[in-house]
């Protein structure tokens, strides 16, 4: 049987998503029952871009399942510096590990990796492409906060380069969700993400200000404008700091509004929001453990 990869949120059906969310819920309810599920299995972490939470979250999830982790370390100290191709790197790691978690600066990197190995590949972010595991923990948090049916979600910030946004918009199209996209004109969704939403029959509402739709929202998904994705510094400066939300800004919002953020935040969410009931972002981050445990069990659960 071919290995089960997790490459893109666009490839996930509603059933796929719901299966992961229920598995994660079961794990969160009784984590001890899962502590040996992946004993003696090894997860290879290949992060070609800096990462704190995603890397640590995968390591924590694997270890909480009784498995081990091997980490390529930073690109500066690996053979990538010597010019090794990704295709070669993953084939080498295939000899060491039972599954690969890959973060890479180029779009499509996880797809390429999956074509060269016979072990599962999990995309932990490919350039401005996709970040499906982040999306699953986002959906888990939305389900927990307000449910996933008949809701309005506002996605704010870098819709053009933000891979968490591309994955989230695709996955939300599987549910009865009104999507409000809030971005400056230069950071709107790329054509291909819009094409998928159109093909799925999703009508999106576009705004340049959060205020235009805030009162209608059940979820406000903030994102960082990512300096590292901009081809030119002037373009970045023109939009940096475009969206900031403080506790005062949220006074007109629905009482149950959940504010999410894939983190790290810079200044998109003021610290005074942390103490309000709207702050779900740290909970969201913590939910990454149960969701990634569920995903790892799913792809590594069978015997090798």
């Amino acid at each position, binding site marked *: 049987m071919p290995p089960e990869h997790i490459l893109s949120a666009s490839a996930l059906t509603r059933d796929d998503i719901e299966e992961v969310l229920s598995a994660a819920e079961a794990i969160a309810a009784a984590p001890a029952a899962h502590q040996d599920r992946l004993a003696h299995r090894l997860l290879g972490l290949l992060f070609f871009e800096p990462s704190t939470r995603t890397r640590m979250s995968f390591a924590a999830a694997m270890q909480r399942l009784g498995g081990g982790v091997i980490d390529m370390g930073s690109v500066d100290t690996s053979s990538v510096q010597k010019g090794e*191709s990704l*295709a070669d790197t993953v084939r080498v790691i295939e000899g060491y590990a039972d599954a690969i978690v890959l973060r*890479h600066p180029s779009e*499509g990197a996880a797809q390429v990796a999956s074509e060269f190995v016979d072990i599962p590949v999990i995309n932990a972010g490919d350039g401005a492409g996709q970040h499906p595991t982040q999306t699953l923990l986002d959906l888990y948090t939305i389900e927990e906060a307000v449910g996933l049916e008949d809701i309005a979600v506002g996605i704010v910030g870098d819709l053009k380069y933000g891979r968490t946004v591309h994955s989230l918009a695709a996955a939300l199209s599987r549910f009865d969700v009104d999507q409000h996209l809030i971005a400056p004109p230069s950071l709107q969704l790329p054509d291909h993400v819009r094409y998928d939403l159109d093909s799925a029959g999703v009508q999106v509402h576009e705004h340049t200000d959060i205020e235009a739709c805030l009162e209608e929202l059940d979820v406000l998904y903030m994102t960082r404008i990512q300096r590292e994705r901009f081809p030119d510094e002037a373009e970045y400066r023109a939009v940096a700091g475009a969206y900031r939300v403080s506790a005062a800004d949220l006074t007109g919002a629905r009482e149950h509004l959940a504010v999410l953020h894939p983190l790290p935040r810079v200044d998109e969410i003021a610290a005074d929001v942390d103490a309000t009931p709207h702050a779900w972002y740290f909970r969201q981050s913590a939910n990454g453990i149960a969701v990634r445990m569920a995903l790892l069990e799913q792809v590594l659960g069978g015997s090798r």
Partner: protein
Amino acid sequence: MSDRQLRVSKIRDGTVIDHLPAGTALSVLAILGIDGSNGEGVSVGMNVRSGRIATKDIVKVEGRELSQEEVDVIAIIAPVATINIIRGYEVAEKTRVETPTAVEGVLRCPNPNCITNQDEPVTTRFRVLDGHLRCRYCRGLIADAAVPDLLAVGF
């Protein structure tokens, strides 16, 4: 002898690519990697009057039969083209191009940040959608009209 024959003479062995939309002949030559430097005999007719389509382009290439990958890309920019294989001055085979469901190789992805542009040992693959191609790797969309600009390096 008709005006058309004067401009585009018969070939002995090779391929005639006919019923190309007017203005696409040079793109077809680019798809075939023909720039005249390899010595092939090539005849090109542009804006030739035609019964089937008002005006058309036509390309005749001596001593060359096309690969399926080449025909697939031609089909994207010239969906009603016909390919005539000529052997001994006679039409040995005549086929209409068919729009493929996918195109492999031949084209490069225009997204500089796509993994296919990073020296990895992978062949580009595009799914053919209505009016667009879609990169299998970065999922980016390319309008059919942009196809001639995306011929892979070395082709």
